[in-house]
């Protein structure tokens, strides 16, 4: 049974190959069947393997399967092999199931588009690469998947390639993440050169044995891997690419830029948690970066007009939560939030997609409104997603996962009041911007004309994801609410439990109530500000200082501006200046000098005998003169 493991990534890749080779000759129906089917079978297979894993957990707590040795050079023996443990099982489950639902949604969403087969080919390649990433048993294979998903992200952001702006956004995404990837590559070199292996489990063991805590190598290794994670997961300071990545089709944003790829950084850190434990400085940096990112992105989300950009900033912010959890050592909480986030954020993106499709490619929320009667299914599912994102207490998945993170950031020995405060404030921000979006889009007066209502293939994924966004949280109930830690229990063979420093039960309850109230308060505030009393916001918008702040937040805290001045322009300038290669000028100078000599000497060839005779005479004078003097 575990022998089928390789099929999970292989099936989508097979789909990719079929679609690339024969895509232009297949009918749309066949393309949809191949594209969705391959992922669907992979999803079924992963559920099948997962139940097997749960029912009969292997003694070593993992399955592994080696296909072939990739490179064989002395110690350097990375192989193409897959490693299934609870952590990767969760990842595989989310990737395949959410991936399948989004594929299904896309079959309808993209039905009017050119390049239908190209779309599904890229999507399949993405799912395959993502599965390789999460199943890889060594860092090099992980890196392969890592770059593969980056590539697919690039290809899919730039899917509508005829618009140069999309291409630019795609390049930006690839290049910014590649900067992080480069750090990660250096990390790989460091790990291999010092530990003589790239196999993840061996790396962890050897690191524990040979690197003392806070040793320079451990810190460097963790920091370099963190660099990769920051790029891929769009955290400070490499977060700028994600909002622009919304140029891609909406299912792409849902799959890649919300549910799966952007959380690869979280997976990487969780996967190599030993390294981070060995480097407390870096782990603390992870927490701080997470906290900062979740706040900054939350404020930016509050000011966006484009519904997808709101969701993009929200994604950055939620991944910030995950980083916060990782930073305080609440590994399983991060993965838990990853899972619930994948459900509700995919749901929100797909909902936004059907709104956008209905209004003929209208992204601006201020031109929407009153859609709740026009698009009832979309509205209801979107509402569930929004509630889950805002962590509406008790009934939503987001509540359980986010609450766990906020609590951990207080209770963990690595946590603290400041980190907790950031998470706590973030909760208010989250519900505020989420329901701003809901109220602007679905409530109020109607502004647009609905042209296209979602069909069955778009509704099914919405409904399933909405269901998951609710029940997904019940796998892990806090001590105050039934104490059912099934999820973290499942993961505890891979991810060590959070080390609590202040584990007061009553405090936890108080904090949960506080967070719940905050979330509801946020929703209420959004109701007041963006639905009931719009003039408050309008009056606020007139004040110059708030305008300035608005602009600042709207532009994502000016990072783009800064990077543009700091890196992009100088680089372009240098490239343009040196287009003709100044080194060539040196050789051109030599050539010019020779040509000059040639001209000067050819002047002496006057064609006049008298001059030649004079020349000979002069030569004779000089020669004899030299002879005389010597």
């Amino acid at each position: 049974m575990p022998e089928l493991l390789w099929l999970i990534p292989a099936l989508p890749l097979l789909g990719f190959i079929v679609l690339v080779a024969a895509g232009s000759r297949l009918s749309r129906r066949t393309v949809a069947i191949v594209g969705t089917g391959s992922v669907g079978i992979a999803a079924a297979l992963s559920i099948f393997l997962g139940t097997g894993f749960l029912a009969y957990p292997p003694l070593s707590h993992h399955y592994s399967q080696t296909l072939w040795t990739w490179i064989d050079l002395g110690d350097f023996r990375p192989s193409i092999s897959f490693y299934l443990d609870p952590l990767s099982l969760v990842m595989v489950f989310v990737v395949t199931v959410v991936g399948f639902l989004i594929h299904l949604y896309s079959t309808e969403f993209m039905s009017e588009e050119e390049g239908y087969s190209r779309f599904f080919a890229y999507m399949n390649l993405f799912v395959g690469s993502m599965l390789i990433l999460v199943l890889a048993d060594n860092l090099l294979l992980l890196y392969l998947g890592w770059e593969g998903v980056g590539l697919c992200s690039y290809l899919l952001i730039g899917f509508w390639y005829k618009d140069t702006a999309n291409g630019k956004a795609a390049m930006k995404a690839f290049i910014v993440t590649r900067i992080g990837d480069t750090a990660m590559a250096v990390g790989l070199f460091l790990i291999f050169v010092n530990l003589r292996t790239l196999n993840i489990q061996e790396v962890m063991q050897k690191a524990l044995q040979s690197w003392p805590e806070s040793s320079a190598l451990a810190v460097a290794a963790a920091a370099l891997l963190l660099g990769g994670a920051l790029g891929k997961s769009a955290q400070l300071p490499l977060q700028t690419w994600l909002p622009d990545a919304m140029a891609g089709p909406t299912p792409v944003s849902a799959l890649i830029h919300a549910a799966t790829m952007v959380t690869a950084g979280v997976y990487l850190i969780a996967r190599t948690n030993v390294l981070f434990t060995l480097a407390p400085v870096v782990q603390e940096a992870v927490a701080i970066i997470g906290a900062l990112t979740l706040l900054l992105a939350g404020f930016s989300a509050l000011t966006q007009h484009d519904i997808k950009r709101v969701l993009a900033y929200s994604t950055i912010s939620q991944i910030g939560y995950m980083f916060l959890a990782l930073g305080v050592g609440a590994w399983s909480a991060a993965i838990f939030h990853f899972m619930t986030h994948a459900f509700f954020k995919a749901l929100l993106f797909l909902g936004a997609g059907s709104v956008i499709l209905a209004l003929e490619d209208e992204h601006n929320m201020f031109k929407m409104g009153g859609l709740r009667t026009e698009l009832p299914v979309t509205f209801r599912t979107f509402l569930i997603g929004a509630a889950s994102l805002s962590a509406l207490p008790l009934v939503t998945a987001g509540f359980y996962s986010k609450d766990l993170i906020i609590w951990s950031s207080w209770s963990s020995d690595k946590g603290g009041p400041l980190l907790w405060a950031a998470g706590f404030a973030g909760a208010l921000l989250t519900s505020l911007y989420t329901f701003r979006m809901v109220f602007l889009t679905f409530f109020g007066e109607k502004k647009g004309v609905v042209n296209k209502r979602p069909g069955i293939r778009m509704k099914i994924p919405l409904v399933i994801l909405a269901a998951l966004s609710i029940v997904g949280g019940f796998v892990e109930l806090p001590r105050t609410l039934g104490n059912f830690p099934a999820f973290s229990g499942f993961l505890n063979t891979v991810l060590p439990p959070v080390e609590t420093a202040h584990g007061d039960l009553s405090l936890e309850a108080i904090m949960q109530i506080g967070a719940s109230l905050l979330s509801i308060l946020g929703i209420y505030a959004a109701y007041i500000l963006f639905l009931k009393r719009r003039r408050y916001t309008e009056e606020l918008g007139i004040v110059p200082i708030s305008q300035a702040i608005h602009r600042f937040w709207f532009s994502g805290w000016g990072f783009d501006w800064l990077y543009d001045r700091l890196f992009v322009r100088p680089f372009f300038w240098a490239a343009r200046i040196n287009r003709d290669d100044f080194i060539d000028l040196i050789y051109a100078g030599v050539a010019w000098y020779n040509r000059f000599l040639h001209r000067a000497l050819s002047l002496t060839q006057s064609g006049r005998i008298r001059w030649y005779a004079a020349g000979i005479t002069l030569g004779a004078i000089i020669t004899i003169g030299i002879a005389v003097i010597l």
Partner: protein
Amino acid sequence: MMPQALLEHGFLLAGALFALGLIGVMVRRNILFILLSIEIMLNASGLAFVAAGARWGQPDGQVMFIFILAMAAAEVSVGLALVIRLYHVFKSLDADCASRMKG
């Protein structure tokens, strides 16, 4: 008493004639005069050989003169043919006319 001579004097005369010929080559633009001046120079160098041969009482200097003579004859014949050709082409004896091979 045998007649005596200073070797240097023979050389001086040869040098003077050579110098005059050289001035002629450099000054004159008429190709005919250039050829004449070359004859003067050749003759002067022949004189130097003969003078040097006379110093030792050996025939080698004279042999050299004969070679120079042969060469002068060959040179003049070709040179004069060239003069005719030049005049035919340019309708002038000005050697500077034939400067097509200038750099």
